[in-house]
């Protein structure tokens, strides 16, 4: 029987406990974690190398922010599925991320079930936007 192909995911988050939480969410969704890092600079380099299907990207990180990493990745890969992770959900942050090309947005204070639901909803809308 043919197995359903797993979605390749990369996680960028500087807080270890949040990264562990996100990994738990992603692993429960038939996804394969192909890479993880804790800063924006490494995120850009790793993305170019791994080219994952889905990128979960924190905003506030050392060395290079998630917004800068988003802009750099988006420039070269315009159709990538990128979900921003953040504790800050002020209008400026959300609008900036939309302008820079984020596909989705997840508040870190969401319960696991809700995070899963948001990823599914956004993924479905993203797939539909490509058709």
């Amino acid at each position, binding site marked *: 029987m043919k197995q359903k192909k797993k979605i390749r995911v990369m996680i960028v988050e500087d807080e270890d406990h949040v990264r562990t939480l996100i990994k738990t969410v992603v692993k429960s969704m038939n996804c394969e974690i192909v890479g993880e890092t804790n800063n924006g600079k490494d995120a850009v380099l790793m993305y170019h190398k791994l080219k994952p299907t889905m990128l979960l990207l924190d905003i506030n990180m050392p060395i290079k922010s998630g917004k800068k990493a988003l802009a750099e990745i988006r420039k070269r890969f315009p159709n990538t599925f990128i979900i921003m992770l953040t504790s800050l*959900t002020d*209008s400026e942050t*959300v609008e900036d991320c939309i302008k820079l090309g984020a*596909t989705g*947005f997840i508040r870190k204070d969401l319960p696991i079930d809700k995070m899963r639901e948001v990823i599914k*909803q*956004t993924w479905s*809308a993203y797939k539909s*936007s490509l058709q």
Partner: protein
Amino acid sequence: MILKEKYDLNQMLTEIEEDENEQDKDVSQGKNIPQEIITELMINNLKQTKEKRT
């Protein structure tokens, strides 16, 4: 001379409530936007991107 104006307290309260409701709907004023509203914004953005492309 002190001018006295009469205010309708109920009307004032209604106006305050209406202002608060309007502000809740206005994302540009949001400091802590709920996940549902952000997801809706993101999905609408994807739909618009698709429409622009087709």
